[in-house]
């Protein structure tokens, strides 16, 4: 029996900066996960992943990550994905530092 599909986002690392990026509905990429396109249908999710994988000049290692749809946009459900939205816990570096600007 196949598992029920859980909501996803397409995410990858940026080719030049190496940081986490997420695919938006308008085909652009964002560094803010809450602005990403939430994918609630398996066939659509697969299509969006293929679209991301066809952009090797921007995105490296694209994959589907679990996400929870909220009024504030998609939020991570797993701690690894949560860390990717923030940065390391030992220094104020990465996205958490950029958000302070």
């Amino acid at each position: 029996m196949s598992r029920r599909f859980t909501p996803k986002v397409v995410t990858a690392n940026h080719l030049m900066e190496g940081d986490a990026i997420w695919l938006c509905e308008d085909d652009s990429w964002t560094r803010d996960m809450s602005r990403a396109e939430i994918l609630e249908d398996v066939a659509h999710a697969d299509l969006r992943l293929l679209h991301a994988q066809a952009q090797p000049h921007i995105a490296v290692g694209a994959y589907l990550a679990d996400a929870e749809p909220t009024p504030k946009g998609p939020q991570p459900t797993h701690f690894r994905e949560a860390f990717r939205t923030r940065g390391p816990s030992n220094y104020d570096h990465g996205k958490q530092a950029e958000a302070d600007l």
Partner: protein
Amino acid sequence: MYHYSDFDAAFVRERVAQFRGQVERRIDGSLTEDEFKPLRLMNGLYLQLHAYMLRVAIPYGTINGRQMRQLAMIAKRWDKGYGHFTTRQNIQFNWPKLADVPDMLDALADVEMHAIQTSGNTIRNVTADHFAGAAGDEIADPRPYAELLRQWSTDHPEFQFLPRKFKVAVTGAEADRAVIRAHDIGLQIVERDGARGFRVFVGGGLGRTPMIGKVLRDFLPEEDLLPYSEAIVSVWNLLGRRDNKYKARIKITVHEHGVEEISRLVEERFAQIRPNFSGVDQQMLAAIRKQFSLPDLDDRPMDGFTAAYDSDPVFRSWVDTNVTAHRRDDHAIVSISLKAHGATPGDATSEQMEVMAALAEGFGHDELRISHEQNVILPHVARADLPTIHATLREAGLATANIGLASDIIACPGMDYCALATARSIPVAQDIATRLDALKVERDVGPLKIKISGCINACGHHHVGHIGILGLDRAGVENYQITLGGDGTEDAAIGTRTGPGFAYDQIVPAVERLIDCYLDLREDPSETFIQAYRRVGMGPFKSALYPKKEAARAA
């Protein structure tokens, strides 16, 4: 120390130029990521959780002041002003931008450094005892052999597509400070009937299936080092399991075929290739050895040192933990702790790197070492200079007196940086050290090695920690398993799991219970944690870790 020949310099420059072209072609779209990835890995460039990571080799852990200053410059110019020293005597930069990496590699080449073979299925950076050439207990300096192995293994045409990575460590002393028994090949310099040679260990390794290396040859004559090493790698290259990366390391090959069969095959291969080694390697070794001679150490009076030691308790405490006997009584080996309580194990800022470089240049015959325990060593300093060195280190936040104590924790980058990690390790190390500092117990506790890995690959050497901690992902939550009784020295042992793991917010109290348990049960303060564990076994520690379960069972 070793200086590049014209060949070395040209080779490293050529690789940088090639990589510059590869990066350009990746950016302009001529190379796909699948094509580019093996090329970047050959040059030490990973893509991690938040950024690229450049791993730079510090061969056998030896660098000079100029090289350390250059690492500081690179960290400041192209990274975020710090670097992370690793358990395999490398330094990692956590935030490089892809387009900057060729310039970083050129800057490394300017000071005879590189990132070649710090990744990929190749022979990796050859590591050595960080006290090499300075320790009183060694038969010979292992670094000339390590350098010979580095030259032999770099771009070796037969060994560029091995079944998996391959790690070699060398020590010149019986006391194993280089964890040689947890390496694919571990070499210990020994003497027999006045002749120098090696005890050769094979098939050690940590990771998913931890194994202690087995003796393949009790005595290998010095001049057979390269052909015999080549025979080992060659036999494994054919036998190694390319079908399953979890079974590809030589430890599994040795385990599956048995050490006798591996020995037979290696000896057969060795007999075949030995005649090809005409002795050029030994001429090269002789030339290399000249570059590792002990610096000219002046006779220095001890009065100033003795006066400071007797009058300054902070200095005395630092000397007692961080200073090791040198082969000469009026000199010493200083271990600079990169483990300030609450700091990230192994991290140094650019400013700290510059301070250490200046100390090496001013007081340490321009030599620094990186230890596998993620600290920095000044191997040759006069005891008379120790008060000045200590004062300088204090100003730079580098005078933490905890070498070998419980807060001198090895920790891999874990899920704060590493794409492979299953849990964080750095904040666990930070919190344990902070707690120990608050309790003020670590001097009383004495020697205790805590080692933390953020995944099963065991970069944090948790299997050989007296207390080992392994961070896992258990149903989407960080969970930490504890092992006890591991040992990375000549008495190497793999730790035993205590039982169920602990949640992120429970791991520090768990470690504290283990330490309290040890303090309660030790016979006297001279009995160390590991000795006490070996005497009483797992039982009392398990009861301390899982009090409720034990109570329920008793009820």
